[in-house]
């Protein structure tokens, strides 16, 4: 039973249904794998007892023929999701020992469908980061290493714990969130699949907010089909989130094998950026070939405002964050450092509680919203955002989905890039546009580069058309035959 954790989510569901193994055995296999994987620092909290109790309950349900769509499937939960009775940190010290008395809607939906919670996954502090190095609890380590090297690499961010845990078989799937690329970029860095659905597909209720107009939850899994199965459970309208969409949730898994014959795939010329590694150019070209063979028509398209996306994102996201994070003031919950007076207590609490990157973004956000700067920064960024949304609208009159690389590079070394925030922000260059326009985007592993590290391709779809993302993603997955796994060194 030592390999149950290496199954796909879909495969595990079949095995459970066939009674090949129990949810308890499946869960135990994961807990054992987690126990030997502390070197990856993927889990902040392991909820072993709860996991086994949930697994037993699942086995009982299945015995009675009452199994839900995810019954008995052990999952990890990004520590941005509030989990009732389980400490939730958002990767920050400022939340102290905060233990929510409530459950996020997305995780609640997963438990409703029978899933088992293994624990809480490490992440960049308040989801701000592209390498998982801003976590207050130490960086997550990517299970992948370059060929012949023993240098620890980043798993990407901010959902680095989720990506790393999925890649290292420490869960069958994990919840993640994506504000500027935080699902797709780590998926690309770890050879996993990650989808950020349409803004509003998944409820934000109970997810610690970073930038409300951009934040969206999604799954990270090992296959496209697994992501489709998991997203179906996570998604759905929630009256507790005013921005949640009143839209039916289709059977995403059924879309994964849909024929692509006659589909038009747009190739945006603006995504061919200066200094892009040749290997990324190559997998992009490979992706085009694969889709052509599936009967797709490739269309050259233009998203003229793409170059303004990253600057606009780095105004809007910090602006919202500066306000969203104001509640961490040491007054009602979380960590507090007392000062001589109220102002000093605020200052000391927030200086001690927030890490450097979070402080930087709060400062940027406060600055761009300040009197005299608001129009020049925030309003202008919103105008750019409207133009970018318009760009996509125009392009989707010419094609059904877009194919782009997910990230401009493969995983890099821990500590290699964190002295230049601007360089770090460039990680999001291909992913932020989908957040700004609220569109679904999936990252699928396409190949290993020459050093043996995974690279992903991204498919961006129309609003509420995740099905096309899954269909194209599924085709890419089949064509790429990506079956590489990181060698176990941990």
């Amino acid at each position, binding site marked *: 039973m030592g390999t149950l954790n290496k199954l796909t989510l879909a495969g595990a569901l079949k095995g459970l249904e066939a009674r090949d193994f129990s949810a308890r055995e499946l869960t135990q296999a994961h807990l054992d794998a987690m126990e030997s994987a502390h070197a990856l620092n993927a889990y902040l909290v392991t909820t072993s007892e709860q996991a086994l109790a949930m697994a037993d309950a699942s086995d009982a349900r299945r015995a009675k023929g009452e199994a839900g769509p995810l019954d008995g499937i052990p999952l990890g939960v990004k520590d941005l999701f509030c989990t009732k009775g389980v400490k939730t940190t958002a990767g920050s010290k400022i*939340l102290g020992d905060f233990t*929510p008395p*409530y459950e996020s809607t997305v995780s609640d939906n997963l438990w409703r469908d029978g899933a088992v919670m293994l624990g809480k996954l490490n992440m960049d502090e308040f989801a701000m980061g592209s390498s998982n190095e801003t976590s207050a609890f130490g960086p997550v380590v990517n299970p992948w290493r370059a060929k012949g090297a023993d240098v620890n690499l980043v798993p990407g961010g901010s959902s680095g714990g989720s990506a790393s845990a999925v890649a290292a078989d420490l869960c069958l799937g994990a919840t993640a969130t994506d504000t500027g690329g935080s699902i797709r970029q780590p998926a690309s860095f770890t050879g996993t699949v990650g989808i950020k659905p349409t803004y509003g597909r998944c409820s934000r209720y*109970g997810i610690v*907010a970073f930038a409300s107009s951009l934040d969206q939850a999604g799954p990270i899994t090992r296959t496209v089909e697994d992501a489709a199965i998991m997203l179906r459970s996570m998604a759905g309208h929630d*009256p507790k989130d*005013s*921005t949640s969409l009143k839209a039916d949730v289709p059977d995403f898994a059924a879309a994964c094998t849909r024929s692509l014959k006659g589909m038009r795939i747009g190739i945006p010329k603006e995504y061919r950026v200066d200094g892009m590694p040749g290997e990324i150019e190559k997998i992009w070209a490979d992706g085009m070939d694969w889709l052509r063979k599936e009967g797709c028509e490739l269309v050259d398209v233009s998203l003229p405002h793409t170059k303004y996306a990253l600057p606009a994102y780095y105004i809007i996201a910090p602006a919202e964050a500066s306000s969203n994070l104001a509640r961490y003031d040491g007054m*009602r919950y979380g960590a507090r450092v007392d000062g001589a007076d109220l102002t000093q207590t605020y200052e000391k609490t927030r200086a001690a509680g927030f890490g450097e990157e979070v402080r930087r973004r709060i400062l940027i956000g406060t600055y761009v919203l300040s009197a005299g700067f608001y129009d020049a920064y925030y309003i202008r960024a919103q105008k750019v955002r409207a133009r970018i949304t318009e760009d996509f609208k125009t392009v989707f009159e010419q094609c059904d989905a877009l194919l782009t690389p997910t990230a401009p590079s493969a995983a890099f070394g821990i500590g290699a890039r964190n002295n230049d925030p601007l360089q770090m922000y460039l990680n999001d260059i291909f992913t932020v546009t989908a957040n700004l326009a609220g569109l679904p985007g999936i990252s699928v592993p396409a190949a290993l580069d020459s050093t043996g590290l995974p690279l992903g391709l991204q498919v961006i779809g129309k609003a509420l058309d995740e099905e096309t993302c899954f269909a194209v993603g599924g085709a890419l997955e089949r064509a790429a035959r990506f079956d590489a796994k990181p060698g176990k060194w941990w």
Partner: protein
Amino acid sequence: MFTAERIADKGDWITTDTGDWEIIIGLEVHAQVASQSKLFSGASTGYGAEPNTHVSLVDAAMPGMLPVLNEYCVEQAVRTGYGLKAQINAFSRFDRKNYFYPDLPQGYQISQLYHPIVGEGEMLVELDDGASITVGIERLHLEQDAGKSIHDLDPNATYVDLNRCGVALMEIVSKPDMRSAREAAGYVRKLRALVRYLGTCDGDMEKGNLRADVNVSVRRPGGDLGTRCEIKNLNSMRFIQQAIEYEARRQIDILENGGTIDQETRLYNTDTGQTRTMRSKEDAHDYRYFPDPDLLPVKLSADWLAAIKADLPELPDEKKARFVRDFGLSEYDAGVLVSDREKAAYYEDVAKGNDKKLAANWVLNEVFGKLNKENVEVAACPVSAAANNAIVRMIGDKTISGKIAKQVFEICWDEGGDPVKIVEERGLKQVTDTGAIEAMIDEIIAANPDQAAKVKDKPKTLGWFVGQVMQASKGKANPQAVNEILRKKLLD
């Protein structure tokens, strides 16, 4: 800026050694929406509960909690907007006003800066001398109230009660159209009556459910506008007027001594009657307003708005016009009657089926007079409108005289009971039987021959006989009949 350029009535000018001044006043009234639950959460708005018992996870700004707009509050804002004859904005949006304070858990107040739900309107304000002015409304927007910081429970700590935190407020901003404390008071009084008519706010100033920030500046009559100061959070008519008068004098003193007014926010001390600096313009917060990304814009359909408009109750101005037009009441009497929804409703119940003017006189003089004297609210009046309706009917059909009516009213006030039965049982019916009256008169004339002889020379002394007869009849004799018969017997 103004609805209309207007110079204060001369009676409202402040005259000093250097000449005349007038006061320019604009108000921001915060009216708490009369809703069961808060603007963005399901927590109760009930008043007077144990501290921190009406607090939801949203109100306490727990991580990951999101606001959900209370549609009922939106409807009340729109209804109030219609009451103010204002532009209703089919598109409005909520913004965050960012600042740190312990009674503001989110670190921002959700308000509407850029796109308020209600735009410009106006309100007719009747003054106590019978004149009226029109005050322009700049806007009405919805926002959250903050919690309450309690500083005096512990010398070293501040306690926070979040029960009020997140309760819906309508901020109603006037144009600077008022020129005296009495005009400002008239404005608040009328606004309070309006929201109470609409049921959108209970207007309870003592509980702080309606409170005002007052902007005051002074200028030479008709001259250039001065710099204004804002006096925060006044929660009684009296404080509003006192604060304006103090503040105007303070500003005039400074100007007359060659100083300049600093634009600042001030607080009114209810003990000393003075205002003091709360924060200067330099210390003003930069609130970093921006649209709240957790909330969608509010879009109101034409059908929805039309249904709300059609469902509005009759408002004071319309009611007053109807009382004047259909009931023949004077402008003044009608104005007093409609000044409060309960009073108007009470009057209409008394007037039903009766002579409207008679009913108005009765209600204004007897009923409201007594209520004022005893300091009782209309709603708590021990004599019901139905009882008064019966009394007025008996006056109208001459079953009882006005004097007896007062007596019946007093009995009803003290002991309760049905006025018709009281009149019946206590034999208070007016005596209109001229034979009986004549007999009484004859008896009195016979007993007072000297007085009777004088009447011809001094017709005014007839009144003495009237009094005697009324006394003898215990007030029940029809005074008109008494007069006629006495006249016939003593003057003809």
